[in-house]
């Protein structure tokens, strides 16, 4: 069954990316120069980047049929709707 030849991603490179991003994150959190709002955005951006690396390469979503990616994508808007609506409700 493993007859389809294709390029396997370089897992060690991804590991290095993740290591560097983690270090950047921790450093950024303790650099007192950056205003809080920007810091939060940067940290979340970095976290999402790392999460995407894990999802796309380690979990192979990049190479799977699009229907499988759909399964993982579906809960995300629901999560956003729940959190945003509840926060808004208090405003």
């Amino acid at each position, binding site marked *: 069954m493993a007859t389809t030849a294709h390029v396997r991603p370089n897992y060690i490179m991804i590991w290095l990316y993740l290591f560097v991003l983690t270090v950047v994150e*921790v450093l950024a*959190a303790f650099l007192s120069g950056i205003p809080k709002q920007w810091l939060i955005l940067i940290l979340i951006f970095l976290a999402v980047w790392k999460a995407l690396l894990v999802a796309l390469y380690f979990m192979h979503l990049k190479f799977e049929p699009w229907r*499988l990616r759909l399964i993982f994508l579906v809960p995300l808007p629901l999560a956003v709707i729940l959190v945003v609506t509840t926060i808004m409700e208090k405003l």
Partner: protein
Amino acid sequence: MQTSTMIDAMRPPSPAEPGAGVYSNKLGMWVFLASDVMFFTALIGSYIILRFGMTDAWAAPGAVLNVPLTGINTFLLICSSVSMVKAYAAIADGKKYFLRPVLGKTLRDGGLKFWLLVTILCGAAFVGVQVYEYIKLVEHGFTPAGYREGSQLAEHALADPIKYGAQTGAMFGSTFFTMTGFHGFHVTCGVIAMSYLYVTKVLPEKYSPQDYRGIETIGLYWHFVDLVWIILFTIVYLI
């Protein structure tokens, strides 16, 4: 009527219409992971909602929690994710080498036993460090109910209420222990599941490049747990 004569692990057990294009174990695990996303949404979402709704200051990063130690722990979990995917690649590709440039050794299963063992050990170590962290936190005075009266932490909070988030300590404790606790529970379940597979299927070499479904399936779960931690570490420890 059609009769299935061939047993191929990677397809449905009988002739079928085109489905998701992947074998059922993998599909089922992805559906389960979607449900787990919703579970963590409830917990993490509540944290975001509660913290957003606080008018008083939340504890500053690093004031209560041990960020350097947890940073190392995060790296440990990421390493376990890498070893997991190496284990999967070893059995999926059926390559017969193992760390050729370093050891020049050849292993029957391409290193599955080695890499999976590394994953299990890193995972167990992660849980161990977290348990240690919890013990230290509770000793210091940080509990799910907030800052324990009379503890060191409570004194710090009195001295510097902004940095230690004195008014929001109860919510900090509630959300921190629930989120990281359930994540830790997921990690523990993963370690137990991998250990079980290790003993019953990996050691007796039941997996092959023709059928490595169990490895890929548990691998997906393990990567998911790592993914959740990446998010959790950022929003709980660093923000």
